[in-house]
């Protein structure tokens, strides 16, 4: 690029970057998957694995603790129930004992009393006992001769009634005498007792052949709502008679006792006989009523007493002792035990929900669970912190690695710049600077600008587009266009703008330069020269700029040295625009008309109008660059070229071609440049091409040269016309010309004529062709190429 180019002069070069690319590559071979797997293991699996272990341990310990506590609670419950059971046994025993012991005492007293005082002893004993022992209801005394005596409480529970079974006038009667508790007789009566025989009553018959106390089945008195049972003892009196002494004891008091008894918080107790009939327990009267006052029917109903019924079943299957079971999703514990000193086969059954005893264990478990929950939450938070910390460390390590790589990258870039030959030579292009700037800062585009005319304008020395991998430059902008940016550069401060379109200093620059690429971020680094600011480094969309300030400064300094050199080389020419230099216009004075133009065969002037020609045949002939050594060879070559040109002129005239243009090592022969379609044009050009080929081959062979030419032929529409002042030059443009050139460029070997499909279609009846195959070219699409061999 010329240092003193004025106006807009753009060049593009296809220099490739020094970097190996590639953000475009999909797989980065330097990144191994193992690392990421290890990272995942380290970052996630390890902390959360440890957390799960902690949670699992807590859960296991909690479960174990719960189980041990529960086992302890169950044992404690059983012990408690056992204690309660012993207590109740004692209570029951105490309750019944007066009947059992009373029988023994009374029998002893009566047995040894003389016959005359037997009645008095019985009455005295009975009265005393009834007064002092509330659960005792009455006493009987009978003998084998059918005598019967009874002492009982009054119907209201106070006073006493003494009844004797007597025969008056052959009639059996009850002689009832009523006494107060103090022994004062208040009255008497006789009631009929026909048919009564005490020896047939159960309390009497049960004692036959028995020497110990016998118990009858409990029986109910609906009138007095009493639930009573009788114990009786047979003994021999001193007078030789056999007596049976019986005591009635009320079970109501026992039920009341059990009713008030608390087992745990909500548990209770019941006494059953060996056949499962209820002897005493809670709500005994309601049960008796429900059973129709029939003690035989007072069995445990699973509907009203589900827990006792289930407990009794367990007892029947498993025997005495504590048993646990679950009923309606609730756990119960029951204990069944025999009652000593009681009637034969009585069972005490206790039941209570486990919760009554184990509720504290449950609370303890819940608390443990809550503590475990808190620990887990803390563990989670700690694990989260750990993960965060590890990831942060990893990120920092990565950043350090990246920084290391960045430094290596920068060093490599500096080395690359340093090893560039003619780095400070102003005539050499400073391509390496912009390339390295773009690569290191990761900028979309990096450019170096130089101030001109004492700061009146700025010119782009070089601009490198990293994505397109192209260099451009030469565009110049004046202070009036970019006022704000100039001030900013001249101030010497670095300018970093995240969005150039919205900053008033850079709006114009964005509109004129950046919008074309669609970049937004702008970084401007002024370049300091010995006499002040000489230019600026401009980076667009440079994400890495904040991290590589040192590198950019270094590059700016190198660019500064170059710019100073460039300015000195340009000298005073740059102090003012060319059109203001005195005498400059003289340079632009009209020159003498050139003696030659580039037409070997001129187009007929005035005969043809400019415009689109529907059927133009274009033949492009290219020659390889000649290699000459010495003046003799040069002359010989020029003679040869002249001969070839003359031949071309001759053949063109013979074939009636429209024009032949020469440009460097190319010749363009054209025919059919008329507004009307000319079907013969292609035939004439093809003939001319074949003739020229023969002629060239012969001429080159005579000069001992290889066939260093190639021909391309196309046929189709093109547009053209005469351009310039007289003598005007005819020129032709269009796809037909481009394709003909492409055909000439892409021949397989020297001396061949390559044609397009259109030519083949037009000429295949007249000429011989060899297919080369189908090819695709951008903007042109698919097409076949043929080699024109000969006429048919």
């Amino acid at each position, binding site marked *: 690029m010329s240092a003193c180019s004025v106006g807009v002069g753009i060049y593009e070069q296809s220099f490739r*970057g020094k*970097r*190996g690319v590639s953000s475009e590559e999909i797989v980065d071979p330097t990144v*191994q998957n193992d690392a990421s797997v290890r990272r995942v293991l380290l970052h996630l699996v390890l902390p959360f694995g440890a957390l799960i272990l902690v949670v699992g341990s807590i859960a296991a310990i909690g479960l174990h603790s719960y189980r041990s506590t529960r086992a302890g609670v169950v044992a404690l419950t059983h012990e408690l129930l056992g204690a309660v059971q012993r207590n109740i046994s004692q209570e029951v025993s105490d309750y019944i004992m007066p009947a059992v012991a009373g029988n023994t005492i009374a029998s002893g007293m009566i047995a040894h009393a003389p016959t005359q005082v037997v009645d008095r002893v019985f009455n005295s004993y009975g009265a005393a006992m009834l007064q002092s022992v509330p659960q005792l209801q009455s006493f009987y005394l009978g003998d084998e001769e059918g005598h019967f005596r009874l002492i009982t409480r009054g119907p209201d529970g106070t006073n006493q009634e003494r009844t004797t079974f007597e025969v008056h006038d052959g009639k059996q009667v009850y002689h009832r005498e009523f006494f107060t508790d103090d022994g004062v007789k208040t009255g008497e009566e006789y009631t009929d007792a026909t048919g009564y025989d005490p020896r047939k009553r159960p309390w009497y018959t049960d004692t036959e052949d028995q020497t110990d106390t016998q118990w009858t089945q409990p029986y109910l008195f609906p009138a007095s709502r009493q639930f009573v049972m009788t114990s009786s003892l047979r003994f021999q009196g001193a007078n030789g008679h056999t007596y049976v002494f019986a005591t009635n004891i009320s079970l109501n008091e026992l039920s009341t006792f059990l009713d008030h008894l608390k087992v745990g918080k909500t548990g209770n107790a019941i006494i059953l006989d060996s056949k499962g009939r209820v002897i005493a327990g809670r709500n005994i009267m309601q049960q008796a009523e429900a059973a129709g006052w029939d003690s035989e029917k007072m069995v445990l109903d699973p509907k009203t007493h589900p827990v006792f019924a289930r407990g009794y079943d367990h007892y029947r299957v498993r025997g005495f002792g504590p048993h646990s079971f679950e009923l309606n999703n609730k756990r119960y514990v029951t204990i069944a035990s025999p009652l000593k000193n009681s009637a034969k086969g009585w069972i005490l059954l206790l039941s209570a929900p486990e919760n009554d005893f184990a509720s504290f264990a449950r609370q303890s478990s819940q608390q443990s669970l809550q503590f475990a929950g808190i620990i887990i939450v803390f563990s989670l938070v700690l694990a989260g912190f750990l993960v965060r910390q590890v990831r942060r460390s990893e990120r920092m390590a990565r950043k350090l690695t990246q920084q290391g790589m960045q430094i290596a990258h920068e060093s490599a870039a500096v080395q690359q710049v340093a090893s560039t030959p003619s780095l400070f030579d102003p005539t050499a292009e400073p391509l390496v600077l912009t390339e390295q700037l773009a690569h290191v800062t990761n900028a979309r585009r990096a450019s170096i600008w130089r101030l001109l005319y004492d700061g009146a304008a700025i010119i782009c020395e070089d601009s490198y587009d990293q994505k397109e991998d192209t260099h451009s430059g030469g565009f110049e902008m004046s202070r009036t266009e970019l006022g704000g940016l100039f001030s900013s550069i001249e101030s010497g401060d670095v300018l970093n703008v995240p969005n150039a379109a919205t900053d008033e200093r850079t709006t114009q620059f964005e509109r004129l330069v950046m919008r074309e690429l669609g970049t937004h971020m702008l970084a401007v680094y002024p370049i300091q020269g010995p006499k002040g600011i000489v230019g600026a480094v401009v980076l667009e969309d440079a994400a890495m700029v904040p991290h590589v300030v040192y590198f950019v400064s270094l590059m700016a300094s190198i660019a500064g040295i170059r710019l100073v050199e460039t300015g000195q080389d340009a000298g005073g020419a740059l102090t003012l625009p060319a059109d203001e230099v005195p005498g400059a216009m003289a340079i632009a004075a009209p020159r003498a008309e050139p003696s030659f133009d580039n037409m070997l065969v001129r187009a007929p002037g005035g005969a043809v109008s400019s415009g689109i020609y529907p059927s133009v045949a274009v033949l492009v002939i290219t020659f390889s660059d000649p290699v000459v050594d010495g003046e003799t060879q040069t002359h010989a070559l020029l003679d040869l070229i002249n001969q070839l040109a003359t031949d071309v002129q001759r053949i063109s005239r013979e074939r009636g071609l429209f024009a032949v243009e020469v440009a460097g090592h190319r010749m363009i022969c054209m025919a059919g440049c008329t507004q009307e379609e000319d079907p013969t044009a292609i035939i004439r050009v093809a003939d001319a091409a074949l003739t020229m080929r023969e002629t060239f081959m012969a001429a080159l062979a005579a000069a001992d040269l290889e066939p260093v030419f190639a021909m391309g032929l196309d046929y189709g529409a093109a547009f053209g016309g005469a351009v310039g002042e007289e003598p005007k030059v005819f020129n032709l443009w269009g796809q037909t010309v481009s394709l003909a050139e492409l055909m000439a460029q*892409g021949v397989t070997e*020297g001396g061949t004529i390559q044609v397009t499909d259109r030519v083949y279609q037009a000429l295949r009846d007249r000429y011989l062709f060899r297919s080369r195959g189908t090819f*695709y070219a951008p903007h042109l699409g698919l097409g076949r190429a043929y080699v024109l061999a000969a006429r048919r």
Partner: protein
Amino acid sequence: METRTVGPLLELNKAVPSFEESGLPPLPFSMKLMPGDCVVVEARSASRATMFADLCCGLVPLEEGAVKFMGLDWAELHDRELNALRGRIGRMTRRPSWPEFLNTHLAITLQQLHHTNRPLDEVVAEAARLGELFGLPGLPVLPPSRLSDVDLLRAGCVRAFMGRPRLLLLEDPLEASPVDLLNPFLSAITEARDRGAGVIWLVRGNAVWQGYRQGITSLWRLADDGLVEVRTA
């Protein structure tokens, strides 16, 4: 994704190729190729040259030593990374390497389409540009078997220089090729070297590369006694 900016591009560090697998002499091969270098390796046997190129690509098992490309040891990479790394090598080989199930244009662009996310238009435009450079009137779309030998050779050049290969393994494309291929070939090599690619040019005789003598970094000979550097005048 720049992997390496300093150090050798290709390094054969006492690499002893497996004789059974390659037919190369089981001797230690040592060579360093720096970015921008162009090394000529003379090998009389075409098959041996191909095997040597395979060795550079990490396709030949080693008995000892290591072959590193861009600082990465072929033996230490997994398949995915191996393939990606090989995608950075441009290769011309005497071994038949054109797939019959694809047309030539696909075979040429396949490597770039597979390894990069470049837009199709861009890849096609580059292929067409290279096709033009190597004397094709465009991108050939016929099956490779229907192209002439010379055009297939040109297509091979296009394929090798597609993308920005970091290493070029060229098994003497100029042998029995038209004269006009020489300049585009040397121009493409020079351009590739300018942007930091390393070139290993395998030749059968010394006539082919004499025109480019000044551009050659070093000359080696691959024979029965292994890989030996030859001093050049």
